C-alpha cells in the first residue's frame, strides 16, 4: 500500500517534470521576449533593469512600422475575403454538385496547404513575371489566398457533410425559397465553420513571410519589416511588436478554435 502510493507519487513527479520541460521548451523563448519588451535597457542582457512602457511608445511613433502594420491588416483582410469568396462556393460545389473529376479536384485543392511557402512563392513569382504583373501587396494577397483556400474548403466542406440535409428540405417544405433556405437555415448552421476558418486564415496570412517575401513589391508587411530590421540586431522595440503580435494571435487562435468546435448537441 505504502510503496504503491510512493511509486505513484514518484511517477507523478517524473511525469510533472516532463510536462514542465515540454512547456518550458515551448514557451520560455516567448516569455523572454515578453519580459524584455518591458525591460528598461536597450541591450538584451541580464540582469533586468526595471519596468518601462518606453519601447511601446517608440513603437507607436515609428511610422514605417505602423505602415507595415497597416499593410499587414490590408493583406490579411483581403486575402481572407478572397479566400472565402472562392472557398465557400467551392466547398458547396464539392458537397452538392456531381461533376467529372470531383475526387481529383478535392485532392488538388488540398495541395497548396502542404506545399512549402517557398515553393508557392517562387512559382507564383514566375507566373506573375510571365504575365507581366507588377509585384505589389495585391500579388501577395493572391499568393496567400492559394494556401488559405485549402483551409476554408476543407473546413466548410466538412461542416456541410455533417449538415443534416433534411433541415434544408424542411425549410423548403415550410415555404422557404432556395435563397431563404440558404440564408436562414444553411448559413446559420455552417456559421461557426465560416468564422473559424476565416479567423484561422487571417492569422496565417498576417504572420506569413516566405510567400510574401517573393511576391511583395516595395511595400512591407509587418513580419517582413521586423525581419528587415533584425539585420541591425534585436531591439527592445522588436520585442514589443512581438509581444503585441503574440497577444493578437492568441486571441485569434482561441477564437477560431472555439468557433470550429461543433455546436452543442
Amino acid at each position, binding site marked *: 500500500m505504502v510503496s504503491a502510493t510512493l511509486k505513484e507519487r514518484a511517477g507523478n513527479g517524473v511525469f510533472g517534470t516532463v510536462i514542465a520541460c515540454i512547456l518550458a521548451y515551448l514557451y520560455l523563448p516567448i516569455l523572454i521576449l515578453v519580459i524584455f519588451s518591458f525591460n528598461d535597457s536597450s541591450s538584451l542582457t541580464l540582469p533586468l533593469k526595471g519596468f518601462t512602457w518606453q519601447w511601446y511608445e517608440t513603437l507607436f511613433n515609428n511610422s514605417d512600422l505602423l505602415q507595415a502594420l497597416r499593410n499587414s491588416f490590408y493583406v490579411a483582410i483581403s486575402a481572407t475575403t478572397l479566400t472565402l469568396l472562392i472557398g465557400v462556393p467551392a466547398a458547396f460545389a464539392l458537397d452538392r454538385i456531381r461533376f467529372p473529376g470531383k475526387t481529383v479536384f478535392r485532392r488538388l485543392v488540398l495541395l497548396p496547404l502542404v506545399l512549402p511557402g517557398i515553393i508557392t512563392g517562387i512559382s507564383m513569382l514566375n507566373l506573375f513575371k510571365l504575365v507581366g504583373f507588377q509585384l505589389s501587396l495585391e500579388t501577395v494577397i493572391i499568393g496567400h489566398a492559394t494556401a488559405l483556400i485549402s483551409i476554408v474548403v476543407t473546413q466548410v466542406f466538412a461542416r456541410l457533410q455533417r449538415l443534416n440535409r433534411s*433541415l434544408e*428540405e424542411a425549410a*423548403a417544405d*415550410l415555404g*422557404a425559397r432556395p435563397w431563404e433556405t440558404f440564408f436562414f437555415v444553411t448559413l446559420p448552421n455552417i456559421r461557426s465553420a465560416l468564422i473559424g476558418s476565416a479567423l484561422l486564415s487571417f492569422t496565417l496570412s498576417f504572420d506569413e513571410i516566405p510567400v510574401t517575401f517573393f511576391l511583395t513589391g516595395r511595400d512591407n508587411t509587418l513580419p517582413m519589416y521586423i525581419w528587415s530590421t533584425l539585420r541591425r540586431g534585436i531591439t527592445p522595440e522588436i520585442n514589443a511588436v512581438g509581444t503585441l503580435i503574440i497577444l493578437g494571435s492568441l486571441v485569434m487562435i482561441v477564437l477560431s478554435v472555439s468557433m470550429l468546435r461543433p455546436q452543442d448537441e
Partner: protein
Amino acid sequence: MASIVKFDHVSKVFGGKIVAVNDVSLSIAEGEFVTLLGPSGCGKTTLLRMLAGFEAPSSGQIELAGEDVTHLPPYKRNVNMVFQDYALFPHLTIQKNVAFGLERLRMDREEIGKKVRATLDLVDLSDKADRKPHELSGGQRQRVALARAIVREPKVLLLDEPLSALDANLREAMQVELKHLHERIGLTFVMVTHDQTEALVMSDRTVVMHNGAIVQVGAPAELYDRPATTYVADFVGTSNLLQGVVQKVNGVAAEVAVGSASLRCTPRGEVAAGQEVIVGFRPEKLRLLGASEKPDKDWNVFEANVGEVLFHGSSVRMRCKLASGEQIVCDMQLGTSAAASGIPEQGSKVRFTMDPASVPLFTEDDRA
C-alpha cells in the same frame, strides 16, 4: 367526399434503372387518415416525397386539391411534412421553429405570435417556447415537428415514419395522440410506416405497398380479414400459409388437401379441382378442441403436435406441427387465469377446429 390528393399512374425511376415507384394510382379523400405501409425499399417514402415535392415523378401526374402539382417545387405546395428525424432547426428556439413557416408567408408579426402560441398550446409545449431543440426530449421534439407542420394549416399533413425514433411506450401513447389530433383538427393525414400495428391502429385506410406498387388498399379490418395476396396476409398481422391442392369445389366452399389433412376453405376467385393453391388462416382463428368436445359439423378439424409454447400474458402462442410436417402457429386467448385455461403441454397431441369462412384461398396469381 372530394379527393384532395390524386396520384395518377405515377412512377419514379432512380438512375435510369431502379424502379422505386411503379405506376401508382391512388386517390385520397379530404380529412382521411391514410397510411402507406410496406417494408423498407417498397417505395412508400418515395411516394410521400413526391407528394411533398422533394422528388419529381419520372412519369404520371400528382394532383393536390384539383391542381396539378407534379412539377411544383416544395415551397409552392400547400403540404407540410413531419420528418422521420424531425429536422428541427437546431439554431432556432422552439417558438422560432414553429414560426418559420408562417414568416415565409409574410404574415403579420402579431398574427404569427398568436398562431404559434395556439399551436404550441395544442401540442402542450407552451412552457418550452424559448428552449432550443437539443434541450427537449425525443417525444417533445416530435411534438414540435408536428406543431411546425400543422401551424401552416396545410391541405395535407405528411408524416414520414413519425414515431420510429421513439421508444415503445411513448410510441403507443403518440399513436393515440396523433389519432386524436387528426380527429380534432380534421386535416388530411398521409403517413408512411413499416409498422403494421401503427397502420392498423391509426389509419382510416391503409395502402399496402410492395416493390414500388400498391398491393391492396383498404380499411384496417378489411386488410386483416380479407388480404388480397399472401404478401398482405403475411405482412399485415401473422398468417399461416400452407401449400395445398384443390380436391373438389362445391358452391362457395372448396375442399383442399394440405399434407395429410383436408380443409374446407372459401376461395375468393375461381378455382378448379387439381389446382395448386395456398391456404391462409390467422393464428387466432384456430380453436382448441377438448378431448370429448364435438366440433361444429361444418368446421374443419385436424390434429397437430404442440411444439413450442410461448407465454404472452393475455394469450399464448403455440408452434405446432401437422402430421405431414407443416408448421403452423396458433394463438390462444387466456381466460380468468393461465392455469385455468388449460394450456396444452409441449409435445402433446391436440385437435384444432376452424370456421371455413375464415380460411381464404390464394392462387398462384395472389403470390406477391
